[in-house]
């Protein structure tokens, strides 16, 4: 099972957009049984596939809707409130993924309050536990049997949630806008990548597929920063040869009422679809064929 995560501790660089493209590409285009996981308390990724609800316990936060399999009259469900988020892993409960409108794509949504609680943990023994939960969940036989690929969206942070994703992933991608602040976010992620890489067995590396330029514009700023990264001997080889340009469609498909909802349902020659396809094909090639 391949576990791919999109990370950058700066917000608004395209983590959620890329997670979405990749999840839909693998499930819809490649027909691979895929699990999407939302590890960001903001729950943007979840909201693409499920009608997230306002959490009465934390009015600013979202929580998953009732699960379609939940039956309040079934005695088996007596101890269940009918909702299941990925945050259950921190509370010793099972996670029951939701089906989505995308073929072959299941989803484990976020739950703002519970993810924030895990993120806020500071005591070293507890942090350790948080770090290990996602790896534990993804290596459970049920999950391994049901899915061949997992796509994880992450919070813009370097905290326990992000570290758990680093520990659970087989491949990571760092989307970034070619501007100073997001590039600083690349540095934060590379440091976590370094720490995690130095705990791994040789047979189980954490592969950094690379840095994916996003929202690229043909401006001097973007071109110069991209070039200065490409020209650097060490960093250059991690700058992916593909990129996503700044295109309004990528933002428009976020809307619930958008039609079609998936970029891969756009006409074959649509420029945004072609670009998304090229990016996802490249990433998938690296993930599926090169270990």
């Amino acid at each position, binding site marked *: 099972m391949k576990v791919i995560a999109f990370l950058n501790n700066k917000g608004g660089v395209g983590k959620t957009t890329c997670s979405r493209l990749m999840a839909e590409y693998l499930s819809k285009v490649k027909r691979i049984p895929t699990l999407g996981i939302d590890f960001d308390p903001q729950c943007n990724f979840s909201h693409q596939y499920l009608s997230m609800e306002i959490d009465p316990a934390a009015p600013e936060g979202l929580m998953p809707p009732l699960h379609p399999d939940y039956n309040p009259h079934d005695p088996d469900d007596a101890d269940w409130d009918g909702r299941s988020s990925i945050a259950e892993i921190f509370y010793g409960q099972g996670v029951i993924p939701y089906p989505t409108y995308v073929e072959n794509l299941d989803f484990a949504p976020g739950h703002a309050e519970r993810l924030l609680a895990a993120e806020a943990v500071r005591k070293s023994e507890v942090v350790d536990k948080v770090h290990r939960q996602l790896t534990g969940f993804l290596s459970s036989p049920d999950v391994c049997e049901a899915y061949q690929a997992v796509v994880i969206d992450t919070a813009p942070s370097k905290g326990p949630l992000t570290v758990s994703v680093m520990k659970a992933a087989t491949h990571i991608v760092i989307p970034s806008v070619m501007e*100073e602040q997001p*590039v*600083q976010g*690349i*540095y934060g992620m*590379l*440091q976590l*990548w*370094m720490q995690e*890489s*130095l*705990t*791994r*067995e*040789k047979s189980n*590396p954490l592969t*950094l597929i690379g840095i994916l330029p996003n929202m690229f514009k043909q401006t*001097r*700023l973007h071109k*110069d*920063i991209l070039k*200065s*990264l490409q020209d*650097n*001997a*060490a*960093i250059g080889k*991690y700058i992916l040869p593909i990129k996503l340009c700044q295109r309004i469609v990528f933002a428009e498909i976020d809307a619930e009422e958008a039609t079609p909802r998936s970029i891969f349902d756009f006409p074959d020659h649509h420029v945004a679809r072609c670009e998304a396809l090229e990016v996802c094909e490249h990433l998938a090639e690296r993930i599926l064929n090169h270990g």
Partner: protein
Amino acid sequence: MAKKKRFGVSQALTRGLTETINVVENNAGIFRNTVLPLSRIELDPENPRKLAIDLLDIRQGIQATDPWVSQKQEELERLKELAATIASTGVINPIVVYKRGDIYRVVAGERRCLASVLAGKQEIDARVFNEKPKGFDLKLVQWVENTARDDLSLDERLDNIRDLIKEYCVQYGDVPITATLLKDITSLSLPQATYYLTVLNAPDDVKTLIKDGTLRSLDKAALIASITAPAVRQEAITACIEGYSLKQLRSIVTKNKILTTKKVIVPNVKRRGRTSTRVNMGYTANPKVVKQLIDAVLLQERYKKYVATFNSVNWDYLDQATKAFRQLIDILELEQVG
């Protein structure tokens, strides 16, 4: 016309990115940082440290019949202090081990292992190498670890350096070890590296005193080792044993004026048969002495013509006196005094 502005990533950020990537590329898969059960750890009998106490002594207690019982008791007392800090805060640096079948053998950090067991810990933070580090790398890791410790004797430190140099030569060929090279491979300071080399090449009397623990400080040992005249060296040794400070020892050397310069680290023996090619005229801190000598020479008939040469010398200045003295020597050589 103004040039178009070029954008880029700041130098500091570029350096950070580069360094981070290099660390991963150079190290990932070679070792990993993890937590190991202490029950799976064994000490390395080839470690240059000379602790008598071992894991068995900690686990089962020191046997009364053990020939090393008193030394082990002493070591145990010292380990207890470390165990107390480990009990409260854990080990600060991970130990370094390599995998040997099911067991992990300690490359660096035996005291931390022993003290952790003593503190009742079950696990320890470790850096695990997949295979035994090569000779030189192994010694280097041990050296780096050992430099952080303050309970190593000078003798043990010298042993470590000697091993390190030996392994370096095995791995990289028989190159002459200079202070600069030693500095580069150990990241010691240049003066420290120079001291170590001087002491490694010390005359036998100095070596004996280091071995038996009489001479314990590196800088004092280096100072004494660099004294070539046996009598003066003996004087310095005696003073050192009596507890003279480094400064006081230096003044003994200055008094005898035979402190050799840094580049003369050639061992004594080699100098013995060499024929001298010139006379050392000695030193003085008093420029008036030079004036007196020159005056005495100029009194002689054949040197009267040189009086003017020395008219403008200000005898309060050492450098002017030195220059004048050199001129005097030149003159004397020129006139072939016999």
